[in-house]
């Protein structure tokens, strides 16, 4: 089997602090990998190592067949990255943003023009080519950022909380786009706090306190935990691992609020 991402015993230490502790997993090509975990659990550090931005303290890995450490420039040339900040240049126009990333990846002029047309079409940004990115609304910004990340036809798309702070309609449209891309053969690594988004992933990995707790298909996770609610599974893990009562479920919170109201009357 050919893997898009294959890491073995990946560890990253910052001084005495271990940010990522002995991570190993394989993600086949053409899949959506949902990488879940609370804030500060080591997600971003893992992503940065996979993208070849920081070198692991120990362990090894291959991304798209390239070595994490020795061939990081080849990895960078073949992955697309998009974060929740939609790191666009707000004082550049839609077209200038695409042009900029296009030339960063050194796409030949003619090819870039065609690619730009495709992506502007895809993002629904037709007629807005000369608008400053800063004047676009959230959903548009998000799709333009995705366009910038796709300009060089990457084989692996890394999405770091891509839908944080976006309205529900744009969120669905966005995932519709991503699933289309995956159908065309792209592999996607996604981090998210939305469990409905996680449920459509092919593989889910859960990281907590720098360690990989579980990695499986959603279906298997449902079977193991006897529930089809990923959020409950997520919370169950945190409860177990942190040895403290996290929070009751939203249903319970609602019930307790209704109870309070009744008491008042």
């Amino acid at each position, binding site marked *: 089997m050919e893997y898009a991402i294959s890491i073995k015993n990946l560890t990253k230490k910052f001084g005495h602090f271990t940010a990522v502790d002995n991570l190993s997993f394989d993600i086949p090509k053409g899949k959506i990998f949902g990488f879940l975990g609370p804030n500060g659990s080591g997600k971003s550090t893992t992503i940065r190592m996979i993208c070849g931005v920081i070198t692991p303290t120990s362990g090894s890995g291959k991304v798209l067949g390239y070595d994490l450490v020795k061939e990081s*420039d080849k990895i960078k*040339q073949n992955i697309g990255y*998009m*974060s929740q900040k939609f*790191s666009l*240049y707000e*004082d*550049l126009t839609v077209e200038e943003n695409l042009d900029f990333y296009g030339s960063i990846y050194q796409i030949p002029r003619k090819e870039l023009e065609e690619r730009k047309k495709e992506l502007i079409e895809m993002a629904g940004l037709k007629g807005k080519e000369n608008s400053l990115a800063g004047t676009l609304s959230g959903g548009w910004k998000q799709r333009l950022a995705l366009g910038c990340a796709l300009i060089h036809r990457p084989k692996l798309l890394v999405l770091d909380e891509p839908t944080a702070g976006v309205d529900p309609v744009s969120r669905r449209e966005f995932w519709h786009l991503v699933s289309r891309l995956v159908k065309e053969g792209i592999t996607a690594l996604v981090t998210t706090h939305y469990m409905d988004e996680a449920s459509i992933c092919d593989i889910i990995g859960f990281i907590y306190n720098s360690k990989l707790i579980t990695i499986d298909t959603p279906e298997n996770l449902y079977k193991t935990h006897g529930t089809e609610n990923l959020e409950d599974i997520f919370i169950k893990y945190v409860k177990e691992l942190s040895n403290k009562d996290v929070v009751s479920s939203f249903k319970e919170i609602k019930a307790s609020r209704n109870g309070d109201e009744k008491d008042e009357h």
Partner: protein
Amino acid sequence: MGMKKMNIKRMLTITKKEFIHLKRDKASLAIAIMMPIMMLILFGFAVTSDVKNVKLVVFDGDKTKESRALIEKFANSNYFKVSDIVNNYDKVEEYIDRGDAKVGLVIPDGFARDVRRKEMPKVQILVDGSDPAIARTAAAYSMIIANNYSMTINGIKSNQPFKLGFIDARARVLYNPMLESAKFNVPGIIGLILQNITVILTAFAMVREKERGTIEQLIMTPVTSLELIIGKLIPYVLIGFLDFLFVLALGYLIFDVAVRGSLLLLIFFGLVFLISALAMGMLISTIAKTQLQAMQAAFAILLPSILLSGFIFPRESMPKIIYYIGNLFPITYFLEILRGIILKGIGIDLLYKNMLSLFALTFIIVLITMHKFKKTLD
């Protein structure tokens, strides 16, 4: 982001983007274009210790042809403007107290008699000392006028002017014979403009990527940090260099300050200094997280550099510790070099000490910046 490889096309992509930012960022554009003109004019005209048209109040207790001739000398001197002639001594003090005059000239009864008898004529000059710079110069000028006057009178009347006990101790002022502040200030302003604009713009440009989160996107692309840094700095090198030439030209046109020494040498040192200023700007950007912090950090460096570099206040009269702190700023040496080449027309043979210090400091700052920059990337 590796430090090793360098792709010119990718680097120029960064440069092109930076120019678009500049084009759309009115504040940076204003700093690049307006600041040099404003600073040159402000410092050139306003920061002056030249004494011109100082208000003079006169009490003429003698009222003779000779006394009137002396007043005439003062009035015609350009340095003083007779604002009033009063009729008693107290009035003179009153004028100075009120601030209606900075200098008082008191000619006592018997002035003409003393002149005719070739005895040393006495006049009193009162100077408002609350502004020491003006006081010193005004006092000196009035002495010169008075001495010149008595010398001419006695010279006409007798062939032995020096019998009167004058010491002819005329100081010969080198390089800047008219002691014009502008002549002294303009080379300093050139250094200051080059430093301030480069440090501020560079710090801003780097911090902007951090503040807006675009740096996170960039490090995921094949761009290397060297391409990013050089690509980003090119516009500011160009701006800094053009501003340098621009102010040099304006200094010549407005203040008549011409470069006496080698222009080529001046440009070479300008470039070395530019590097140190760019590095300082980048150093700030590694520490500051927002543009506001960058601005504050820039001022924390720029303000002491203005005060301690000898731009306004002579370094020789500073307390030793302050003097040594001044040694830590590249501009301190660059100012000496600027004044040396522009005003004195000297070359490397006389400037080598300043040159070596400038080189060493630039090198150290670049080293620290590179170290810090690498660390922040990780």
